[in-house]
């Protein structure tokens, strides 16, 4: 088999059955345009990062935490080959009960802060980092962690739901959740969410991205990126898969949006 006939292998984590539908849709899209793409699904991001670093897959559809882990293991030279529009300006919000007097993050001192899975960049690692940077005395804050779905880096949203419920019940003064998860809970009318409000919003950061090794064929990478960026949400063949993936436009992606997370993971001992 010639090198060009081998499909480009994309690894992803199956955090929900819809991931299969998404990748079948994308595989068809690339295939119809002459680029053979196949996918391999893993149950957790640690195994996906291993597969990328070891060369078992060409591209990994990584969370921000998985990207930083892979990049560290690849000597800081991992390539980014695309991200969703929604990944470019991600944020974490702190939510508190609407009837609570808390109005900003520093008032957390002396109280309890609920956090999502400890491997979630948006619901655990980054909020601690940003709050410390804003001068919140974390030594005086008790952490209530919900470490569910470890390995999925918060993709399922389950731990964030527990965070919101804990805050609504008064078990924590505030809770950290991804802004997208929060908006979805509000829009769906989750009763606990309707009793809470946003009291703080983090600086924005990058979330998921396609990660490649430094030695990944640049021509193949360019072709992948060209086709990825050419995906149109207005294409009826693609809309269903893009809706399920939560993307309207693909962007090139860049490394700068991951520096806060890299610093946070180093501070919190995730990078050895």
């Amino acid at each position, binding site marked *: 088999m010639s090198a060009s006939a081998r499909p480009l292998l994309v690894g992803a984590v199956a955090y929900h059955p819809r991931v299969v539908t998404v990748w079948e849709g994308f595989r068809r899209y690339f295939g119809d345009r002459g680029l053979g793409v196949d996918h391999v699904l893993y149950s957790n991001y640690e195994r996906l990062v291993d597969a990328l670093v070891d060369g078992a897959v060409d591209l990994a559809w990584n969370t921000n935490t998985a990207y930083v882990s892979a990049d560290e293991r690849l000597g800081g030279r991992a390539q980014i080959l695309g991200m969703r529009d*929604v990944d470019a300006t991600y944020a974490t919000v702190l939510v508190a009960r609407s009837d609570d007097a808390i109005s900003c993050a520093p008032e957390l001192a002396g109280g309890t802060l609920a956090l999502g899975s400890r491997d979630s960049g948006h619901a655990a690692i980054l909020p601690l980092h940003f709050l410390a940077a804003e001068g919140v005395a974390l030594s005086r804050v008790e952490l209530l962690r919900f470490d569910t779905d470890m390995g999925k880096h918060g993709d399922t949203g389950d731990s964030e739901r527990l965070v919101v419920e804990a805050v609504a019940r008064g078990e924590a003064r505030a809770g950290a959740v991804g*802004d*997208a998860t929060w*908006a979805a809970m509000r*829009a769906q009318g989750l009763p606990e969410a*309707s009793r809470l*409000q*946003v009291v703080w919003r983090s600086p924005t950061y990058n979330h998921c991205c396609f990660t490649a090794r430094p030695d990944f064929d640049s021509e193949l990478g360019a072709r992948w990126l060209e086709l990825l960026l050419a995906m149109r949400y*207005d294409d009826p063949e693609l809309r269903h898969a893009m809706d399920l993936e939560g993307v309207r436009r693909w962007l090139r992606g860049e490394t700068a949006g991951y520096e806060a997370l890299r610093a946070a993971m180093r501070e919190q001992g995730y990078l050895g």
Partner: protein
Amino acid sequence: MRRCDAGRLELGEGLEVLAGAVLDAAPPGEVVEMSVASRSIAHDLRTWARLAGHEVTGEAPGAEGRWLVDVRRGRERRVLAPPLPDRGEPARLRSGRFHTGDWRAGPPPDVADPAAGFVPLGAVAEAGAPAFDWPLSRRDQVWADGLDRLVEGASAAQWDASRDVPWAEAGSLPDFLEAAVCQVVTFIAQNEYAAYYVPARFLGAVSPAYAEVLLWLASHVHDEARHIEVFTKRALVNGGRAYALASAERSLHSLLLEHDFTASALLLNVLGEGSFIDLLEFVADHAPDAATAAAARLAHRDELRHVHFGIAHVRRTLERDPGASSRLVAAVEERAARLLGLTGMNPAVTDALTVMAAGSMQPAQLSEGARAVRSLMRRTAANRVARLLDAGFDQASARRMSDLHTPNLM
């Protein structure tokens, strides 16, 4: 810049509906300044906008604790279809009624996209729907002139087989007469089953573009279900029992072997139900009790519509397709070939009709009854030819098809 005051609306409680409507109305790239009641809501609006494909370009405190959020409309369409056309002319109402014949501006399409789905009349279809495959997606396959009036008539003539028949007046017939009535109505009910299954099989095959045909077939099937109900109830009301005759089954079974819509309309609506019009009229005139007479009269009214449809559809087909006549004659011949073993109407039915018409087992009355039944059979044959001529067949074809028609009547 467009401005929108969102009052105290929050995400999940209407804010997203208002913001979506305002942004939908703006061209891509235009900025809308949304005024919301708090900073917390401004945070939520920012996230909603990002997830909905828009972009927040600015955020600032406003007067009295409010927040002003600038949202730039994204370029993607929420619905994958061209913009909706402007409101058209209102529908024409007649004495306050909106008739089915007035819901289209022009005729239905000659050919409908067989892959198109459930797109109501006037609606704009969004791209990306799954592909259907309607076997009947040409107007000529299913249409009949005056269909809108038939549909209106069907809606207006609905009745209730539990309430609209004087069941209390069905009792107290002598046993021999009750037995005859039971055999007659059981035979009719058997036939009504076939009249139910034949159109029911086409219900799921017609393209939704021909909504009038869907309404028509649904009413047809519903009518037949009620006929099954009313004649079954007549047999059961006094505890009587009768035979479901195998000869009738053989005749009716052969109707289900025909898969062409037009040939089915000819065999069932024109020939079968046409013959039944005469039979039901006979039962209504000679029934010994008011319940049987009422049931026959109500069913007769429905069958007139079904026959009308069959004649109109076959006539339209013959007018447009010169080859249709020989194909339809062949369909009648093919069915007749399957029914060679049937040499006449089952004596159990003719006997029961005779006794019912006589109302007595006395020779003189029985003779009257037998004469009435013979007259019915002659009338049925003559009317069958007349209906075939009305449908557009020539004299010879009409006579041949009538002769070949099943002695079972349906």
